[in-house]
Every structure is written in structure tokens, then in C-alpha cells.
């Protein structure tokens, strides 16, 4: 009996070792391809950066990229192009690494399965990047505008805008990745609907007195300060 068990364990161990041995060349090929493309990515990104700096790329396109600079002021066009080149090479490295893995490990269909998912990952990464930048930009815009309008809940508004955009982005990313699509749709609908309903109830019922008092105070303050402001001329 014990011999049978020992024999079975021995057989399964040898199958695992065989499997690992079969996979190992593929893994090595994948890692080697990835390493080569990381190095290539670094070299090409450096070359592109040097080239763009020599061509004064930032100055040349500066006038046409006002909106990019507004959204992400620290990312110059050169940095954006350089990073794009770098990550394109890395992506190509992953694809080639997967092909090499498949070719040398006799595991059919893996590369095709992963490759089919790559566009979704790229799309989701872009969505996440844009959403994060947009959330920060809109939040700061709201904060500055609300402060200049003398709204005492400026920070609350800015935080609200930021999280609304981030939640929307997260839902879009998950939807794009096809992860728990139905649940995300449902949860997002409930969350957004809930927020709107909560705000409506808060303003309409709970905070009715607070809002009316606040508006009254603003109206009184406006009439009091109108005369003062008439005497001040900024230009």
C-alpha cells in the first residue's frame, strides 16, 4: 500500500518536474525577449529625447498644445512622446515574449488568448491615465472657481468632483476590462443615482432651512457690500 502511494507521488512529482522543464525554455525566452526590449526601449527613448530636444520640439509645438499643458503642465510634449516610445517598445517586447513562450513551450493558444486581451488592457490604461488627470484638473478648477466665488464649501465641491470623475473612470476601466460587467453597471448606477438622490433630499428637505438661511445671508451681504464695491475700482 505504502509503495503504491510512494510510486504515485513519485510519478506526479516527475510529471510536475517535466512540466516545469517543458515550460522553462518558454519562460526564459519570454524574460529574454522582455529584457532585450526593455533595453531597446530605453535606448530609443533616450535617442528620441535627444532628437526632440535638439529640434526644440517643445518650443515648436508649444503654441498648439495649450490644452495639454493646461491639463498636465509638468508633462512637456517631449516627455509625453518619449514615454510613448518607451511603452510601445515594452508592449512589443511583451507580445514577442509571449510568442517566444508559446513557440518554445508547446502550450498552444496561450499567446492568442493573452494577445486578444492586450487591446483591452491598453485601452483601460489610457482611460485610467486620462481619467486621473481629468479628475485632478477638474477638481482644482472647481476649487479655484469656488474660492473666487466665496463659497465656503469650495473644498467639499472640489473633492466631490474629483471622486465623481474617479468613480466614473473606475467603472469605465472595469467595464473595458470586462471584469464583473453587470455588477459594475449596477453598482455604478446605484451609486450615482444614490448620490443625486441624496443631494436632492439634502437640499430639498434636510438642508432646506440651512440653504435658505445661507441664501438670505448672501443676499443681505450682497446689498451691504454693493455700495462698498461701487467705491472700489480694480481697473
Amino acid at each position, binding site marked *: 500500500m505504502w509503495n503504491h502511494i510512494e510510486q504515485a507521488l513519485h510519478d506526479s512529482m516527475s510529471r510536475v518536474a517535466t512540466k516545469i522543464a517543458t515550460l522553462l525554455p518558454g519562460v526564459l525566452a519570454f524574460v529574454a525577449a522582455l529584457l532585450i526590449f526593455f533595453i531597446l526601449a530605453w535606448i530609443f527613448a533616450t535617442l528620441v529625447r535627444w532628437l526632440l530636444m535638439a529640434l526644440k520640439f517643445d518650443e515648436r509645438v508649444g*503654441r498648439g498644445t495649450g490644452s495639454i*499643458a*493646461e*491639463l498636465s*503642465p*509638468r508633462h512637456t510634449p517631449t516627455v509625453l512622446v518619449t514615454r510613448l516610445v518607451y511603452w510601445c517598445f515594452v508592449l512589443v517586447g511583451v507580445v514577442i515574449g509571449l510568442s517566444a513562450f508559446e513557440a518554445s513551450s508547446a502550450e498552444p493558444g496561450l499567446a492568442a488568448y493573452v494577445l486578444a486581451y492586450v487591446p483591452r488592457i491598453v485601452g483601460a490604461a489610457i482611460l485610467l491615465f486620462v481619467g486621473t488627470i481629468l479628475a485632478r*484638473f477638474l477638481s*482644482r*478648477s472647481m*476649487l*479655484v*472657481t*469656488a*474660492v*473666487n466665488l*466665496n463659497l*465656503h464649501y*469650495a*473644498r467639499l465641491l*472640489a473633492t466631490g468632483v474629483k471622486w465623481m470623475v474617479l468613480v466614473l473612470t473606475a467603472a469605465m476601466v472595469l467595464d473595458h476590462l470586462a471584469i464583473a460587467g453587470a455588477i459594475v453597471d449596477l453598482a455604478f448606477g446605484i451609486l450615482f443615482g444614490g448620490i443625486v438622490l441624496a443631494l436632492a433630499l439634502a437640499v430639498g428637505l434636510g438642508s432646506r432651512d440651512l440653504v435658505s438661511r445661507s441664501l438670505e445671508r448672501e443676499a443681505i*451681504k450682497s446689498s451691504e*457690500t454693493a455700495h*462698498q464695491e461701487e*467705491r*472700489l*475700482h*480694480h*481697473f
Partner: protein
Amino acid sequence: MAKTELLPELQRSAREPGPVELVIGVTGSPEMDVLRAKAPACLQGIGAKTIVAYAGDNRMNGYGSSEDNIHFASYAMPHAAGSSAFWIEIGAAQRAVLALAGAWQARACLVIHSDLAALDPDTIRLLTEPVLSGSSDLMMPVYQTGKYDALINKSLLSPFSRALYGRRVKFPLAFDFCAGASALAKLNQSDLKSANNGEPQLLWPVNAVATSGGQIGQAAVGTRHGAQTDSMDLSAVLTELAAALFKEAEACAPFWQRVRGSQPALRYGTSMVPTEDAQPIDCRPMVESFVLGSRNLEEVWRLVLPPATMLELKRLARLDVESFRMPDALWARIVYDFALAFRMRRLSRSHLLGALTPLYLGWVASYAQEVGGATTQEANHKVEELARTYEEQKPYLVSRWRWPLRVS
């Protein structure tokens, strides 16, 4: 820059030889009845050919209608590309009339606002005579202002311009001014430079003439233009003007880094002291705006201002309204830090300039409290002190402009 469009009649006229003594360029569409009624009376003393150019359309008479030596000519109002901003439109019209005067090879060009407030004999004489006599290349007006008037100019435009370009001009961004032939050439040249940049820009005649070493004069005029921008949002006006000022500083950096101190502009005319406004202003709303900004915009201010300034602002935010005073040196350094952040693009420019408004209101509150019981003369001394402080703090700007990472 918006391209200056000449009507066909005007293009022919621009090629016509013949000396043009003076071009009066109205920056916009004036009331024609008023213009035709007032212009001959105002220009009686000037014997040579004078052209009054105003913005009009093709149905108007173009060049050719003349009364004695005065010719009326219409030009197509240029559209400031992609901008509806008030000052950008004015700047585009000013560039247009200067370009016309350049094309006509005029000896002088008097630029006036379309409300025609400056179209009176005294103002025209004061602004044009020094230019036509050759004693000044550029004449700027000194408008009569009370102590609570022209606050953006007093706190920002005038002292900043004076510190950087070394000319003590009270109103560097005026609706009306007069440029001589040499200044015209310089201004039209600077116009071409800004056109290369592609963005519509304001016209800063003082800076353009100062960079070429021209003679600048200023005349005390009785003109009052009314509140042109009072109905506009303060933050929008401040953003527009500060952006234009900082862009100009960026463009002229090689020049102003070499300028030390300032020289007075030649004065013409007698200053008239406006009616005194001795009643103090309630500064509480402005201080509250400053405190609100201090509480909420710290994350933005921290990207722009060094820790020492942040510390001072926090201290100010804790003061009560009566004892609220913003030191001149602090305000000057804040403006310089914003100019640096604007150049370095530390954050979005719209956010940056929007975050300046509460700080500006803090300065206004402090200034209004200081001059509350003072006369206009005393308030002017206070403004002069601020301008001197800007000059004293200029090494701070120069040093951080050259080595931005050293201090922050």
C-alpha cells in the same frame, strides 16, 4: 496677433505719397456723429494732414472724406484670434491703428479709446505736442484717479512694469497714448515678433519703447473712461491682465534682467487732485476672501510660493480684520513668484492665475485700511512706496528666474 485688414480704398491711400502729420486711431467703432463733431474742433491747431481712423465696415466711406486737412478713414476691426477677452480686443485694435499709421508714415499716432473721452483739445495737445516736437518718442497719459481707483494698475501693472523695464510710468497699459515715428517703427516691429508667437497679446507700448532706449513722457490728462471692466468678474480681469504681464516679462527677459533701478518719465501738464474720498471702506469681505483662499488654496499656493511666504500668509490669515496688513515686500515677492511659476508652468496657468485673486484681495484690504483716513496724495505716496519695494525685491526675481530651483 490679429492681422490688420485694410479696406481697398485704404490700401490705395496707404500707398499714396504725401506727408501725414498725425494719425488719430480710434480703437473700435465710435459714435460717428460725436467723432465728426468733435474732431475738427480738437485738431484746429494742427495745420498739416491728419487722418482720423476708426473701425468701420465697407459700407462706410473709407478714406477720402475730408474736412480741411482732416481726413476720415475706416478700417476693418481685426478679430483677436480665438479670444473674446476685453483687453485682447483693445490690444488688437491698437496694433491695427499703429500698423496703419506706420503704413502712412505718419509723424505721430495718437491712439484713443472708442468712447472718445480723450478726444478733447487739451488731452490731444498734451499727448501729441511733445511727440511732434521730438522731445518724447512716446507719451502716456496719467489719468485722474481716486485712492480706490485703478487698483490692479497700482498693485500690479505699474510697479511690476517699472521694476522690470526701469521707467516710472503710472499707466503702462492705457487706453490712450501717442507714439512718434521711431516708436511706431519699434511698436510695429514688436507686433511682428508677437505675431510669430501665434497667440493674441496685449500691447505694452512702454515696454517696447523702453527696450529700445526711447524717451518716454507722461501727461496728466483729465480724461475719465468710466468703469470699462467693472461689470466683469474680477478674477477674469485679473487673470487676463496678469497673464499678459507675465507673458511680456517672459518675452523680454534678456532685457529686463540687465535693468537696474528706474528713471522718471518726463512730466507734462498739471496733475489735478480728484475729489477726496475720506470715508473708509469695510475690508471684512476682502479679508474673508483672503482667509477662505488661505484655507482652501494651500495646495495650489504651495506649488508657487516658497515656505517662508507660506508661513507669512498663514500668520496673516490668523489676524483680525482691523490689524490685517500685508507688507509691501511680501506682496511684491508673491507677484514675482507667480511670474516665475507662470514661466515654469508649475501648474495649469488658468489655475495659477485664478489662485492669485484671493491674494490680490488681501493686498486690496490691506491697502484700503492703510489709506482709509488718508488723502489722495498720501495714498499716492503709499503706491510709490510699493513701487520702490518692487524695485528693491527685483534681485529676488532675477535670481530665481536664472536659477529657479535654488530657492524653492
